[in-house]
Each structure stands twice: as structure tokens, then as C-alpha cells.
């Protein structure tokens, strides 16, 4: 609501008129958690895919979701942008709160939610359009007409994913002509261009070579300064490298969640330890 500079300004001038306002701002509790889920159950028809999941996620953190295939990682990730809504028989119980809004209960506009909660998918899925149009897409559907603004946003988004230098001379080229790694970075840029707060990534490097994977991991590390990130990964090293906290899922249950370091070095649960040390998976 106020920028830091504005607040400083208010504090410095501090005349009688604004005093109460200053106090209001300072007294307001810092929103500690960006996302809260409480007792979340997810069903696909009769099948219970997520069992009583409660978890809190801080802003500007990277949370890794790990666990064997089919344990519900993707399902959980897609709870936050309501992507599961399209699946026949999908049903959710419990509370999912983002920025104080219960996204399954309160009257929310799905399109708005998804502008706040961006998603990067497992396989790079650029639109069969030009590089420029891919990145500009999110703004265009919001009705943005200002060419200058769009150009600028496309450029900053491509710079953020370190793709700008590779494609700046050829923004009209079809995105499908890029390499897999470039396509995935383009998809991230496309998501960033909408300026979400939260980015969901579902195994974003599983279809990529090690070099492209490294680039994306570096990128995630950078993005953490501006975004809250949830990443599903099968790769333990990746979880270790990029995440602050890790959540281990098994058969639809959240077995253990904590600082990544602790989960990897001192897991409390035997199942976590077994998975991390590769005894099953």
C-alpha cells in the first residue's frame, strides 16, 4: 500500500495529522505467511489424492515438494492456482489461504488469482507464436494496449530469465524453434511478465539437459528475491541447491516439512530418510 520511501517520509515529517496513520502502519502485524493450507483433502472421484495437508509458506522463499511419483505433489501444487478445477470429479475440502483470501471459499475471480499465482509446467509449453507474442500474451489478455509498455515488459522479463541476449535480434522467430532449455526459460519469462507474487513450478527441469537445468536453478535462486516459489522436483540435489524449505509427501500425506538442511541431514521420519537416501522412490 505504501512504499518504503513513503513510509520513511511519513515517519520523518511526523506532524499531528499523519501521526495516527504512521502508527497504524507500524502496528499492523507483518503478514508472516504468504500461503496457508489447513486440513486440505483432495479427491478425484472416490480417490483421496491428498490427505489432511496443513502447511505454511513464507513470502520470498523457495519450497521444494518432494516424494515418489503419484504421491500428490502436482495435485498439491495445482491447488494454489485452482488448475485442478478442470478435472472431472475433483473436490477439495479444507482451507487454502493466499494473502488472507480463502481461494476456494471467498468469491474470487479465477483469472485474477492466476495473475497472482503463475505456473511453469513440466514440459516447456510455449505457444506456437513468436517469442515476443509468447511473453506479451499475459499483458495482451489483460487488455494492455500500450505498445511501449509491452515492449519494455517483454524485455525486462526476458532479461530476468537471461534469455534476452540470445533472442533480442529475433523476437519475431517462432518460439517452437528454440531449444528445450530456451523454451523453458521463455515459459518462465512469460509467467514473470504478468508480475505474479507466487510461482508454481512442476518439475521444470525434468525435460532438460544438465546445462539448461543449471541455468534454471540459478534463475530460481535469483527469483526468490521477488517471488514466493514452490517447486516440485524429483531431483534431491536440486531440492538441496535451490530450496529453503522442503516438504516430503508420501501416498497423499505430508510426512514432514522443514528447513531443507534439516530434512536432508536430520529427517525426523524414517520414511523421509528412506526416500532421501534412495531406499525407495
Amino acid at each position: 500500500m505504501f512504499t518504503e520511501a513513503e513510509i520513511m517520509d511519513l515517519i520523518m515529517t511526523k506532524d499531528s495529522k499523519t501521526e495516527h496513520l504512521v502508527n497504524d502502519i507500524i502496528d499492523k502485524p507483518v503478514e508472516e505467511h504468504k500461503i496457508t493450507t489447513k486440513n486440505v483433502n483432495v479427491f478425484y472421484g472416490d480417490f483421496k489424492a491428498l490427505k489432511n495437508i496443513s502447511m505454511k509458506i513464507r513470502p520470498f522463499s523457495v519450497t521444494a515438494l518432494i516424494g515418489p511419483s503419484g504421491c500428490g505433489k502436482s495435485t498439491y501444487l495445482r491447488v494454489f492456482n485452482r488448475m485442478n478445477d478442470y478435472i472431472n470429479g475433483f473436490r477439495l475440502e479444507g482451507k487454502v489461504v493466499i494473502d488472507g483470501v480463502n481461494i476456494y471459499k471467498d468469491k474470487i475471480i479465477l483469472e485474477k488469482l492466476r495473475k497472482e499465482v503463475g505456473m511453469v509446467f513440466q514440459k516447456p509449453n510455449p505457444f506456437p507464436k513468436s517469442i515476443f507474442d509468447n511473453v506479451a500474451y499475459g499483458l495482451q489478455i489483460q487488455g494492455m494496449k500500450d505498445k511501449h509498455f509491452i515492449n519494455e515488459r517483454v524485455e525486462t522479463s526476458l532479461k530476468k530469465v537471461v534469455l534476452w541476449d540470445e533472442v533480442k535480434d529475433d523476437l519475431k522467430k517462432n518460439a517452437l524453434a528454440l531449444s528445450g532449455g530456451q523454451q523453458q526459460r521463455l515459459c518462465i519469462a512469460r509467467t514473470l511478465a504478468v508480475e505474479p507474487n507466487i510461482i508454481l513450478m512442476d518439475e521444470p527441469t525434468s525435460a532438460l539437459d544438465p546445462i539448461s537445468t543449471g541455468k534454471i536453478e540459478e534463475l530460481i535462486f535469483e527469483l526468490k528475491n521477488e517471488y514466493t516459489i514452490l517447486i516440485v522436483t524429483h531431483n534431491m540435489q536440486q531440492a538441496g541447491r535451490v530450496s529453503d524449505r522442503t516438504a516430503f509427501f508420501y501416498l497423499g500425506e505430508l510426512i514432514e516439512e522443514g528447513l531443507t538442511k534439516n530434512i536432508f541431514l536430520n529427517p525426523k521420519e524414517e520414511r523421509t530418510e528412506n526416500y532421501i537416501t534412495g531406499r525407495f522412490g
Partner: protein
Amino acid sequence: MIRTREQIIETFLLISAFITIFTTVGIILVLAIEAFKFFREVSVIEFFTSTEWTPLFTQKHYGILPLLSGTLLTSFIAILVALPIGLAIAIYLSEYAPKQFRTYVKPSLELLAAVPTVVYGFFALTVVTPFLQSFIPGMSGFNSLSAGFVMGIMIIPIVSSLSEDALNAVPASLREASYGMGSTRLQTAIKVTVPAASSGIVVSVILAISRAIGETMIVAIAAGQQPRFTINPLVPVETLTAYIVQVSLGDVQHNSVEYRTIFAAGITLFVFTFILNSVSHWLKNKYREKYE
């Protein structure tokens, strides 16, 4: 024992294939030969430039343009009806409708194509034309508007069914990407799915046009039998197909120039539909490569 039986079946299949090819080649040959004989007596230039087609009158003119314009006009009206409706149905079925609904609606739509065309023809002549005449005063009893309109209804399933297949072939991942960025269903359909399926949609339209150009009964009944070089949809016209029917049923002497006009008209028709089908075939192959 089994080997000989297999051999018999194999030979039978081979013969069937040959009969099909042989028939096609035969038809094309007859068309070509008769058309060739026609053009020995009528100049090609007159055929393509004269705006009158009066081979059955004493004052004979052999300009194909009136028949061609009649064919194109009725087909154009038909596609004007079929494209928006067919595409809207396809988008609705592939992007909005629940799966079960789709499985019921698609076959029922295809029933439209199963209605005998003579029924459509009479519908155009006895229902649509009088209806339109009630608020278009100068409209003739035979006209391309009603015929084209009803033909458009008939070819809706070609557009909707093939377009829907093309839309369904667009990978779900593209829709997810679009929804994931905050697009509505309509935005996703218009900006992502339809463009991605565009070649398939074009194929459906070309095949629908091809079907309209070849359609005979509706236009013969409802559009009239007066070759006229015009784009006015309210007056009687004659299409290539309707002309062929008219001469075939009439008492024109075989082996005369008058008789051979139907082969000239026939080969014109054939060239048109052949080109359209080839283009659609080529597009379809190109389109198939895109996501593989």
C-alpha cells in the same frame, strides 16, 4: 490350406483396389476425351471469357462464366452460413461442453449430413424462399440465397466436426499455459486454440466448400436453371451441377456439341474440386507434422 485361403483373399482385395483405381481413371479419361472433342469445336477463349451460356438456344454462346458464377455464389453463401455456425459449434464442443455432452451432440449433428439433399432442396424452395420473400419483396422464387443458405446448413457438420477434431488435437498443455496466465476460456479459444488449430480448420472449410461446389440437388431445385453472370443472390441462377442434370435429363442428341457441353462443365467442376481437395490434403499433412 490356410495359405491358399489367404492368397484368395489377398487377390480379392487387390482386385477391389484395382477396380476403384480403374473406375476413377476411366471417369477422368471419358471426361477429358469428351471435353477435348468439345474444345475442337468451341474456342477455349470463348469458353473462359464469354458471359453467356446458351448452348441449347439457336443463338449459341459457350461462356462458362455464368455457370461458374452461379456455383461460386451459392457456395459462397453456403460457407458464409456454415463457417461461423460450424466454428462456433466446434469451439463450444471442444472448449466448453462436458465430454459426455460432446459424445451425444457430435453424432446428432452429423445427422444433418445424412438428410437426403432432395429434402433440403424442397425445404429451400417451399419454406425458406417464401419466408425470405415475406421481407425481401423483389426476391424470385428461384434464387441463390435460399439454396446457398440451406446448403450452408447441410455442410455445417463438415465444418464443425473436422474443426472440432483439429481443436481437440491442440495439446492440453497449451490450454493449461493459457489458463495458468489468467485467460478466460474465450480468450484461450480465440488466442491460443483456434490459431493453433488453424490449418485443420482451413482444411474443414475447404472440404465444406468442395462439398458445396459439387452439391447438385439443392441448387437444381431451389436456385433455378437460368445461367446468369451475376452476384445478385435474389435472382435465378444455374450452377455447373444443375446444368449437367438439366442436359442429362433432357433430350439433347448424343454426340452433339450441345451434349458435350456437360463434359466441359464436368471437367471444370472436377478441376475445381480436385484443386480444393489437393490443397486440403497438403495442408492436412503439413499440419500433422507440426506437433510431432
